[in-house]
């Protein structure tokens, strides 16, 4: 089929929203995995029907689910009877086995003491650009894993966690999570990741070595505001045609880099508040970016009870508020870091979900908005797929 599929992860299950390319009439399918937290779902660019999902629970831990038919049916990877026979005839069932390489070591805890690295959940799944079975997972406590067999088994790319600065990484309020994974489409050995609250890192050799890329970030809430690591980066976005240009929503401040993260400059400009979580780039205009300003890190809701997306058509600094169709009174929801996405239709569609359970869409690059659905559980993630 052609059309749009929007993958929505919530606190209480997964939902799949579908429409034709007009994007007016939507079908809501779900909940899948009812009652479980779905931190993230994302489809492979190689095969849009291959979707990976991170299903988690504070009680029962991490589950990885996979669909090979666009979300109609799901299985934990490697769970067919023949696949479950490992060496010696014993079942394997390792699709949720995320084990750090070697002795995990320690990182900085909230009180400044050292604390052991402990796996908690997968925050973000990033399918590789050229292999349907290759997928990366960003996890809490911060580390990067990859699977090359469609999610059946996972291997840590441990050079990141073992970076010299690792003992100085510390958790943000939501935990010490690796939440952003960007792959350079022109050189897939080059990847960018972001960790709350360690900062941004880049590899140029497929994960063998990593470099902190936080020069130019200024975080007044840490002892050394310009430290090499320790910055609470909330999200990074990139347009695939310009992988050297990165846009960042930091805890406070919206930033951009034009040298692959080697240096950053602030582009918050006239935003009413530069605190927020998501940031994304227009599908066809690499200098058009979107953020959702949030009042502060203490309150976590929109300024003045007005839900506003801000758009810059100049790559930052000059921002315009987008309000048409969004609630402009008594609105106190949040929009989390992985809960905004764009499609590749022209004009570009923008989608975001709120902690109040609404999923809003714009089919005119942000000029106007409408809710696709209003009463889902709190939305954790939104990913749009454009089906050809």
């Amino acid at each position, binding site marked *: 089929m052609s059309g749009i599929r929007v993958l929505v992860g919530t606190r209480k299950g997964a939902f799949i929203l579908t429409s034709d390319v007009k994007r007016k009439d939507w079908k809501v399918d779900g909940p899948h995995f*009812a*009652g*479980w937290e779905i931190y993230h779902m994302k489809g492979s660019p190689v095969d849009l029907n291959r979707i990976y999902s991170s299903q988690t*629970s*504070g*009680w*029962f*831990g*991490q*589950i990885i689910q996979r669909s090979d038919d666009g979300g109609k049916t799901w299985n*934990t990877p490697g*769970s067919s009877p023949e696949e*479950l026979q490992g060496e010696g005839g*014993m*079942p*394997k*069932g*390792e699709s*949720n*086995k*995320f*084990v750090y390489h070697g002795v995990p070591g320690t990182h900085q805890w909230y009180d400044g003491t050292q604390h052991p690295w402990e796996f908690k959940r997968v925050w973000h799944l990033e399918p590789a650009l050229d292999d349907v079975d290759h997928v990366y997972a960003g996890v809490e406590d911060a580390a990067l894993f990859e699977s090359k067999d469609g999610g059946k088994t996972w291997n840590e790319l441990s050079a990141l966690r073992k970076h010299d600065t690792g003992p100085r990484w510390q958790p943000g309020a939501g935990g010490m999570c690796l939440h952003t994974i960007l792959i350079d489409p022109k050189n897939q050995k080059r990847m960018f990741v972001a960790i709350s609250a360690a900062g941004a890192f880049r590899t140029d050799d497929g994960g063998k070595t990593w470099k902190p890329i936080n020069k130019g970030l200024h975080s007044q809430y840490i002892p050394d505001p310009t430290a090499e690591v320790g910055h609470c980066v909330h999200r990074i976005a990139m347009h695939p045609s310009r992988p050297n240009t990165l846009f960042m929503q930091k805890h406070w401040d919206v930033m951009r880099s034009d040298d692959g993260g080697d240096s950053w400059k602030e582009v918050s400009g006239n935003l009413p508040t530069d605190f927020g979580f998501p940031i994304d780039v227009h599908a066809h205009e690499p200098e058009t970016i979107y953020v959702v300003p949030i009042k502060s890190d203490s309150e976590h809701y929109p300024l003045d009870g007005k839900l506003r997306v801000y758009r810059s058509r100049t790559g930052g600094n000059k921002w315009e508020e987008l309000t048409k169709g969004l609630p402009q009174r008594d609105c106190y929801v949040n929009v989390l870091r992985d809960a905004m996405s764009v499609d590749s239709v022209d004009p570009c569609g923008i989608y975001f979900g709120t902690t109040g359970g609404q999923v809003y869409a714009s089919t005119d690059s942000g000029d106007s908005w409408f809710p696709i659905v209003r009463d889902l559980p709190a939305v954790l993630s939104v990913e749009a797929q454009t089906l050809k």
Partner: protein
Amino acid sequence: MIRIVLPHHLRTLAKVGAEVQIDVNGSATVQSLLDALENKYPVLRGTIRDHGTLKRRPLVRFFACGEDISHESPDTPLPDLIVKGSEPFFVLGAIAGG
């Protein structure tokens, strides 16, 4: 044949009903029972016990014959009523929150 009652979310994950029946070879302990359960339903690996350490997940509890045996050694033999299948072994998600 030992009867095990799983919590709702693990039933849906393993695609089973309220109760599953498990054969245990040799001495029946919490450890051998969970080994056998995970061998039959590999999707449950990592959900009751940590993958690497095999320690019980913090918010999971084990009950046998009305007693919370979560903190007993995993090598402790299970009560006869459990081993004979007269009473089920309960895996519970601990009550947490308000």
